[in-house]
């Protein structure tokens, strides 16, 4: 059996478990499937850990090859690999120093390790100093782009566009402090925001939700039976022979 078919069979069996666990009555096998839930859950967690391992190998293969062959962006690849290995080393040193392997129970035990001064500084610089600041900085760029997009693209070209713009303005203004305007603006203006969110918006959101769930169901079935393009059961895939 080819690799693709093995994946298809495992996917099918995984789906069958969840399907039957949900639909079978307790006395007709449902309880037995439910009792295996802890093992299945553990299996997925183990698989998650395996995926992390695969990711590590993949990073070394992709960026290591770039460094060895001095391909494009090889200096960045060295930086990535050094940062990667440094972070793993610092994390592992403290874990191995303080955790008794025989009582190792996963993440909780790793968190119990008291970090050394060097590790604390390393985490402080890399996490609070670099990762946090970069993450916040990149995300805050959105504010600048949104302001520019609002100015450039938010044009009242039609009646619908005017409705959307008016809604946006009411919703924004309704949630802001009004140091000067609060005495001037009538109270019902705040009520418009509430009505838009609880009335108009809820209906639309439900419609979107039902539509996306229907689409999700179709996608799930296609994945379950490997019917997607390139899957074992897709046209030309050859089926599960």
């Amino acid at each position, binding site marked *: 059996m080819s690799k693709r078919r093995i994946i298809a069979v495992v996917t099918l069996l995984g789906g069958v478990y969840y399907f039957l666990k949900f639909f079978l009555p307790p006395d007709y096998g449902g309880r037995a499937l439910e009792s295996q839930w802890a093992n299945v859950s553990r299996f997925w967690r183990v698989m998650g850990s395996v995926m992390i391992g695969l990711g590590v190998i993949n990073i070394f293969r992709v960026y290591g090859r770039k460094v060895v062959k001095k391909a494009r962006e090889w200096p960045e690849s060295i930086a990535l690999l050094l940062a990667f290995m440094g972070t793993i080393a610092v994390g592992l040193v403290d874990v191995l120093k303080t955790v008794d392997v025989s009582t190792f129970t996963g993440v909780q035990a790793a968190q119990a390790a008291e970090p050394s001064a060097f590790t604390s500084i390393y985490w402080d610089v890399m996490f609070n100093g670099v990762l946090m600041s970069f993450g916040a900085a990149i995300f805050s760029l959105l504010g600048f782009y*949104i302001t520019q997009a609002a100015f450039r693209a938010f044009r009242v070209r039609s009646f619908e566009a005017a409705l959307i713009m008016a809604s946006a303005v009411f919703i924004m203004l309704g*949630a802001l402090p009004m140091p000067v305007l609060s005495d001037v603006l009538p109270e019902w203006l705040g009520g418009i925001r509430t009505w838009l969110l609880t009335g108009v918006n809820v209906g639309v959101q439900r419609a979107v939700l039902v539509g996306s769930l229907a689409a999700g169901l179709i996608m799930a079935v296609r994945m379950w039976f490997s019917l997607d393009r390139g899957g074992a059961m897709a046209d030309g895939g050859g089926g599960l022979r």
Partner: protein
Amino acid sequence: MTIRRDIGALVDWWSRFRDDPRAELRRLPGALRRFPKALLLWLGGLDRRIIYLLTALALIIPLSCELMYAPPRMAQAEKLFDFIEGMKERDERSLVLVSVDWGPQTRSELEPATLAVIKHCMYSRVPVVVMTLVYAAQGFTVEIPREAIDAVEKARRDAGLPEDEVKVVYGRDWINIGYQLGSVNAVRGIASDLPSQVSTDVNGTPLSDFPIMRDVANADDFGLMVEITGYVGFANMWLQWFKKEKPVYISLACTSVSVPESYAYLDSGQFVGLLEGMPGAAGYDRKLEETLGIPHAEKTYRAMTQQMFGQALVVILVVLGNLAYVVGRRVKEAA
């Protein structure tokens, strides 16, 4: 380059004015009549870097001037407030689970909400369990409760309570069970059999050592679950999987961009309250101050004021952009 062109036009005008000021002044009435239209046409082609500069100024000036205005009342945030207040009297299940599921990207919006909810629980002596499903939020599960404890103890001291009633005790009033690996599986594990899913707190001490966790077996033992997240799908995940036999009350604090979709669950009663981004958190903080006397977090009010200036700029730019669009279209049609 638009900026260079505009600066060039300004320099040309200045040199003309310097050469012959009277001639320029004679042109002034006509120029003033044409000014609004010309200004709007100029605005229509405004360089994006000027907009970025205006945005930066709108955000930096209120912060550096330490401007601070009281936020508006938020009805959905007050629903959560009333629910937590009611927990003390309503039933025997008064344990609150707070999941801090956000990272550095959404910190500015969700940290105030996390702080406000934890402060409230601690002050009202509603025991609270803090955890996270996001690796990057591990530090916040330590920092934010520490900040909340300082605020609560200060408020109690200011209220004149005796010293033994001031302290917030770890293991009795709150506990941190830290980062839980496994997303949906972690949620399902906590909901169905908490002791087998989480054996120790964040410091590695067995949960059974803490009075707060002694009789906690599954989701049925929680009176409320507060999900604080900026990630797509997390709120739905808790709604779908965090239950055992009894219905669990769930509330959400989310980023402003997720507010519209959250209203569907609020309307159906699946969420008992909603903290809508920073306005929701600031509104909650205001309610805490007005009702319980816990001083508001200054950084929350300042951030809210900063947001007010930013959004006011957006509204002004949208209006000006549309006026420029209308004028530009008429000019084109006339030509």
